[in-house]
């Protein structure tokens, strides 16, 4: 235990720990607002304060939390809830392959901890600081500095939102802020005709199949939209064993025209940065 304490104190005193906190300061405000909205939305969906606190502290994933709130409210089956969250979290699977080149040599328990605490914003700050994908000793204190900043910037407003929302009447409809937050993320993922069409199909299917039991309309909508998206791609471009590259598009920006062309040609798959865990 003392070795862990020593490790923590050495990490915290490292100048890179503070450097990361400074790098993260700019985006912390956005994260805080997201945390607040998520906290409010959880309680306004009818979740008890204790469960909402538990969810915020344990799940620690902004858009996944917001997405499953309506499903939890109506008592959807666990696998539908988990499938929905997994789809929303898919971008992290891509990020994890980038993290690997920096942290593959660390023990498994540390790698899992790094995974749990790594959000979009940390990823962006880290890649800016260490563009070369090879391990360096200062990366650990830097990562934990960024992760700590992100965790505080998220959890404090989220908990505040949970406690404050409890004092506001349900009839005000503050939970709608959560829907608007997801709307913003969704719009940022619409890059081209295929993504717009897939969204239209998903919306139609989700509403049309709403009467299905067990919230299966979610599943129908996901399956239909993915199928339509892949079909459009297959028709649009005759792919000949192309291996698309990943392109990280910064939040709050439009994709540059030449990258847009690469995307249309199927050479890159855009991945939008999101300013929340």
């Amino acid at each position, binding site marked *: 235990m003392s070795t862990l304490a020593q490790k923590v104190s050495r990490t915290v005193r490292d100048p890179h720990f503070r450097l990361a906190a400074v790098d993260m300061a700019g985006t912390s405000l956005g994260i805080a607002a997201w945390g607040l909205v998520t906290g409010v939305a959880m309680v306004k969906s*009818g*979740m*008890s304060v204790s*469960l909402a606190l538990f969810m915020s502290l*344990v*799940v*620690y*994933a902004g858009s*996944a*939390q917001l*997405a499953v709130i309506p*499903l*939890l409210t109506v*008592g959807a089956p*666990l696998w539908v809830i*988990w499938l*929905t*969250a997994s*789809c*929303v*979290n*898919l971008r*992290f699977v*891509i990020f*994890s392959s980038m*993290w690997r080149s920096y942290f593959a040599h660390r023990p498994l328990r540390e*790698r899992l901890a790094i*995974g*749990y605490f*790594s959000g979009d914003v940390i990823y962006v700050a880290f890649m800016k600081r260490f563009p070369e994908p090879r391990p360096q000793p200062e990366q650990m204190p830097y990562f934990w500095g960024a992760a700590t900043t992100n965790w505080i910037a998220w959890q404090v407003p989220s908990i505040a939102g949970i406690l404050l929302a409890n004092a506001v009447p349900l009839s*005000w*409809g503050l939970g*709608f*802020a959560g829907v*608007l937050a*997801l*709307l*913003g993320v*969704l*719009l*940022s*993922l619409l890059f081209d005709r295929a993504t717009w069409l*897939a969204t239209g199909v*998903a*919306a139609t*299917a*989700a*509403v049309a199949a*709403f009467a299905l039991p067990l919230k299966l309309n*979610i599943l129908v*909508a996901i399956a*239909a*939209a*993915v199928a339509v*998206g*892949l079909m459009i791609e297959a028709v649009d471009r005759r792919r000949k064993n192309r291996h698309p590259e990943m392109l990280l598009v910064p939040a*709050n920006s*439009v994709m540059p025209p030449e990258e847009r062309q690469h995307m249309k040609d199927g050479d890159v*798959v855009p*991945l939008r940065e999101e300013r929340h865990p």
Partner: protein
Amino acid sequence: MNGHWIETTIAILGLAIITVVSRAFFMIPERELPLPDWLKRGLKYAPLAALTAVIAPEILMTQGELLDTFKDARLPAVLLASAYYFWKRGILGTIVVGMVVYLPLHIGWGW
């Protein structure tokens, strides 16, 4: 949600595992795995499909029925919030604009 708090707790614990597994996914195996192309392509559609599936009924339906009136605060809120997004590309402002339209209509007019 009242009553089935045990199920909710199980759901939350599962969600925590999903957080760890998705964010650590390619760091978990000892040997490096190549990033499969289906994942890159699926990435383009699966998240937006899941988000749309969740929010479309939240915006367009009421008591399990499609809205039969335009006098619903959610519609102007979503339209103006979307317009703001495509103008400024900021998600935070999108939430703020949406709520600024929604709250007066909903609380004041009862839409």
